[in-house]
């Protein structure tokens, strides 16, 4: 393989690895969006906070995978609590009020993390071996492992929403709350469950990206931006689109970074966001909404 081709292959695989992270966070955003029609700006900070929980557990000597699952479960509970205790209070409030609450949550979790865990940048371990698999130079074990975990997570979510009656009830509650009540679905709890799932997905994404970007209270701010670009690119109301958008943004970001310099990486996300909003606001797979007035 030529040096250029090898470099490109490496960038694509690395892009898929971070793309999986963007896909997960984008999916979490879409899940909340479908139920509330709002973007949860605090999603990234919830993930960061969960990653700190995992870090504390690891510091206390808990084995990695035990800490991983405890953190995912903890983030689920945290998501449910945030919905039940805070978001629920502004359920019927004007859009702007809810957006302010989301931004408030962002600031609160960011500051809480800094207060409790400090602002110093911490290394975060990967559960995967340091040696590259199959002795090649193109892909690291962590990249490959992180892609695998992302894919397993997405497959589990797909099966849950597609084939279980609880998943169906959650989709119904997001689409049509009133009709959902009329078939006996406890809509409030379905929304809380959605927040819980989004929290757990975000936590997994946080734990997978932390070895690469290192752990600190602001570690998710850039990632949330990429995830937002991914969700918009795929269509903010399309879970499958958000996932595909995540992988596209990840690969694109890495290739642009390699060819034009890493300074331009974040610009990719911003260009995508503006570009999608101008050219095709519904995204690649989103539905175009027509409203009769």
């Amino acid at each position, binding site marked *: 393989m030529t040096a250029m081709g090898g470099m490109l292959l490496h960038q694509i695989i690395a892009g898929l690895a971070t793309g999986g992270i963007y896909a997960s966070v984008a999916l979490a955003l879409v899940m909340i969006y479908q139920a509330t029609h709002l973007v949860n700006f605090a999603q990234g900070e919830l993930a960061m906070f969960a990653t700190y929980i995992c870090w504390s557990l690891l510091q206390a000597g808990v084995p990695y995978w035990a800490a991983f699952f405890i953190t995912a479960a903890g983030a689920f509970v945290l998501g449910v609590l945030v919905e039940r205790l805070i978001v629920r209070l502004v359920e019927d409030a004007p859009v702007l009020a809810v957006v302010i609450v989301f931004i408030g949550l962002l600031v609160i979790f960011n500051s809480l993390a800094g207060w409790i865990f400090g602002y110093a940048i911490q290394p975060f371990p990967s559960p995967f071996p340091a040696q590259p698999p199959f002795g090649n130079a193109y892909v690291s074990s962590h990249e490959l492992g992180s892609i695998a975990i992302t894919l397993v997570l997405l497959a589990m979510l797909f099966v849950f929403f597609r084939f279980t*009656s609880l998943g*169906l009830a959650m989709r119904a509650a997001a689409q049509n709350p009133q*009709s959902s*009540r*009329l*078939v*006996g*679905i406890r809509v409030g709890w379905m929304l809380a469950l959605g927040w819980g799932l989004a929290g757990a997905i975000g936590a997994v994404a946080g734990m997978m990206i932390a070895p690469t970007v290192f752990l600190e209270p602001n570690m998710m701010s850039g990632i949330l931006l990429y995830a937002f670009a991914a969700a918009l690119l795929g269509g903010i109301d399309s879970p499958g689109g958000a996932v595909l958008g995540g992988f596209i943004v990840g690969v694109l970001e890495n290739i642009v970074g390699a060819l034009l310099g890493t300074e331009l990486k974040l610009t990719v996300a911003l260009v995508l966001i503006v570009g999608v909003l101008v050219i095709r606001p519904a995204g690649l797979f989103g539905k175009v909404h027509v409203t009769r007035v």
Partner: protein
Amino acid sequence: MSGAPLLEVRGLHAQYGATQVLHGIDFRVEHGGVTTLLGANGAGKTTTLRAVCGMLARTRGEITLDGRHIEALSTESIVRLGVAHVPDGRGTFAELSVDENLRLGAYTRRDKAQVAQDYERVFGYFPRLKERRRQQAGTLSGGEQQMLAVSRALMLRPRLLLLDEPSFGLAPLIVQEMFEILAGINKTEGMAMLLVEQNAALALRLAQQACLLETGRVVMAGTAAQVAGDEAVRRAYLGA
């Protein structure tokens, strides 16, 4: 609870914002019976159905189901007591498939074997839905969506079925069919119904009891035959 009606509504008041819509309504639905609420647009029929299943914030009065007070319960809890509602405007899940809509209708039921039988039962009533079971509900015609709304309610196997304009959007022939199906269900399964229907002649044929509402008050109540025989009703609602 023998003797007590399945549904009893006493002194029901309801308001939207500052506007009083119902001014103390009384009526009942007997076990296995059909009661119809008649009246012009704006008389408060739809509001009454909504109040019965807890969809309104501001109501006053007593609503009992089989002797149990339900006026303070949430819609979800009332549905779980066996009250299904085919709402005004159908309320199907437009982005979900026909199959998924029906599965949701049986969401609160745990008797899986019975549910499987009920699928076949509603597909028996409405074969058109079976042909379209994988299709998105939003892509169905208006009439098919109405069939789906009724079928979804039947999937609950309710003790009490609330029907808000089941003939809405249906072709005349299908309307006849729909009412024959409803009459059959009422007769063979003893499913009680509270029916709101523009087509008073049809409604009075299906119902045993009838109430005439005018601007939020019951102005006449009795057996369907008595109400159908009333001269004023005949002129205003039956076109005879």
